[in-house]
């Protein structure tokens, strides 16, 4: 297979000016990442700073109601409140080894920005976060958290003023700052080697979950279900289970309002087509002329018109299945899990859970279903309160 490709998807579609830092990163990834020294340091950080392994929690009440065995992989318990930190700690370590002194990153909802900022603080690195101006407004709490960790937050005023344009701005900034700065890409997408690097750093989710399932359930899961925006928590939750043919892998995208004509964030399961954006060949939401369309989801972390190339390849090969649920289904799942299990999921993770709540009736009774609970829901309380107020 061609370097940097997953089947027909992936690649390095960037200006030549970005090839030297990408080649440098690729070389560092191959040389440093597998080294004993790096792995020991990473393992120690994950244990003592991030708080890994995260729990695998059985849900007794929902399992009884649904007639399945529902398990949650608790990435909401990772430091920072989401899986994002698995990636940023690894990349911050790599940044140090590269001799660079500064992290730059894009962020949509602000979760990756927060995770990058706290990793920068821990490792004594400077940090600048690019965030769409609209997101800066919508996610002011996360902006304050980033600043508290010492990051500079740049509001991106161009284009749609959301994640898509924050990535454009971060790529532009990296061209100018490549000598001192590592681009800490937030999801398993973008130009090679980012999809591979982020997958390697997030695979800890499924490495732990596989061992935990065998120990706690005495069996492999029948389903592993995760939400997909760019797809980093999903690729991390899937990776170790890929060779286990009996394990069904389900990626849940955001269908938005579900109303005809409204934007969504589901290039795999609704109406995407292959194209090139942000350095990768993948499935995109675009016009027939190849212009990228705005996306929408009530979950800010899923609000992206593309998807990581490995997911596009898993869909093409049939190894994973991609579906979508609407804003309402996710909001109901948010409330249901809080009410019945005492766990408040992020709106992103609520999409994965919502699909399970909806689909459990079609599953073999007693199926073991693992949902990757990618983050905690505190950040989403305003959105959920508005929804409940409207519904009442």
């Amino acid at each position, binding site marked *: 297979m061609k*370097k*940097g490709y997953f089947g027909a998807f992936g*690649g*390095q*579609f*960037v*200006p*030549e*000016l*970005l*090839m*030297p830092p990408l080649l440098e990163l690729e070389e560092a990834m191959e040389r440093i990442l597998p080294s004993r020294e790096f792995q020991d340091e990473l393992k120690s950080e994950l244990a003592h700073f991030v708080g890994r392994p995260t729990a695998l929690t059985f849900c007794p009440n929902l399992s009884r109601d649904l007639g399945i065995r529902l398990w949650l992989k608790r990435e909401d318990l990772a430091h920072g409140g989401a899986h994002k930190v698995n990636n940023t700690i690894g990349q911050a370590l790599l940044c140090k080894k590269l001799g660079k002194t500064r992290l730059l990153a894009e962020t949509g909802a602000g979760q990756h920005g927060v995770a990058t900022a706290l990793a920068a603080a821990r490792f004594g690195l400077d940090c600048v976060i690019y965030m769409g101006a609209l997101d800066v407004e919508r996610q002011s709490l996360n902006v304050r958290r980033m600043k508290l960790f010492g990051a500079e937050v740049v509001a991106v005023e*161009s*284009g749609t003023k959301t994640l*898509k*344009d924050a990535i*454009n701005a971060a*790529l*532009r900034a990296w*061209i*100018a700052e*490549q000598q001192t700065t590592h681009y800490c890409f937030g999801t398993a997408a973008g130009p090679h080697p980012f999809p591979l690097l982020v997958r390697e750093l997030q695979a800890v989710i499924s490495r732990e979950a596989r061992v935990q399932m065998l120990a706690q359930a005495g069996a492999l899961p029948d389903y592993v279900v995760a939400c997909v925006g760019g797809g980093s928590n999903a690729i991390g939750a899937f990776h170790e289970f890929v060779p286990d043919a009996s394990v069904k892998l389900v990626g849940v995208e955001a269908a938005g309002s579900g109303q005809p004509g409204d934007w969504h964030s589901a290039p795999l399961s609704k109406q995407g*087509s292959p*194209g*090139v*954006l*942000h*350095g990768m060949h993948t499935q*995109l939401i*675009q016009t*027939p*002329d*190849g*212009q*990228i369309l705005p996306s929408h989801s009530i979950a800010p972390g899923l609000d992206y018109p593309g998807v990581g190339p490995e997911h596009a390849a898993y869909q093409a090969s049939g190894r994973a299945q991609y579906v979508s649920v609407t804003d309402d289904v996710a909001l109901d799942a948010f409330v249901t899990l809080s009410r019945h299990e005492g766990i408040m999921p992020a709106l992103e993770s609520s999409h994965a859970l919502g699909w399970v709540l909806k689909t459990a009736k079609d599953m073999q009774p007693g199926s073991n279903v693992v949902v990757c609970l990618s983050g905690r829901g505190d950040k989403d309380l305003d959105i959920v309160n508005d929804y409940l107020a409207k519904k009442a």
Partner: protein
Amino acid sequence: MSTNILTKRIAAARAKGRLGLIPFLPAGYPDKNRFWDEIDALDESGADIIEIGMPFSDPVADGPVVEHASLKCLDAGVNLSWILSELAARKGRYKAGLVLMGYLNPVLQYGLERFGRDASSAGVHGVILADVPFEESGPIRAAFDPCGLVLIPLVGLNTTPGRMALYAREGRGFVYFVSVLGTTGVRSAFDTGLPETIRTGLAAAKAAFDIPVALGFGLKHPDQLKALDGLVDAAVFGSALIRHIDAGGDSKGFMQVWK
């Protein structure tokens, strides 16, 4: 192999003792009608090659001036079908060489082979795709080559001699040398004196390529051209022309200042 027409246009300018002049304007800017008047004016005012921008929603190699202009053109309904059919209707009208510059995705959706055919028969000589490095260029060259359409390489201050050699092997027309580690139009690459880094980079490009070297990104005022004498063969003006038009000027006036 016969010399590419873009190479010839720049050589002709050099023979007259000046740099080749390559203005850039996004297709449909400042509006869909006036754009073609501006292209006529550029051609009549001595442009050796005219670069027409193919607007894209996510132009990562461009700064705010070109991005803003491109998005305005997209809003006005500019797409590749419009650009190519309007060019086809004007085929044979221009003395200047014609280059289309943009990003891969719109071209990919149009269809690589179909684009190669239609662009070539509309009188286009070359294409610059800002997000296609050497590693991804194979299928594109394979689609364009049979139509005689050339893919123009783009290199910069951080391009190693090894990578320049890769591009030199396949490069046709001219090579676009990016004079700043940055995006288009963000800042002046240099004042009247040329920094050593650019001088060294240009020397490396001149040594690596046997096609003309055009310098672009960061050219703001005509005095900069003097500093380039003997180091490059041509100069590209993008953001500066857009700014000139935004300030109420036209292409003819712009070219008179730079020529």
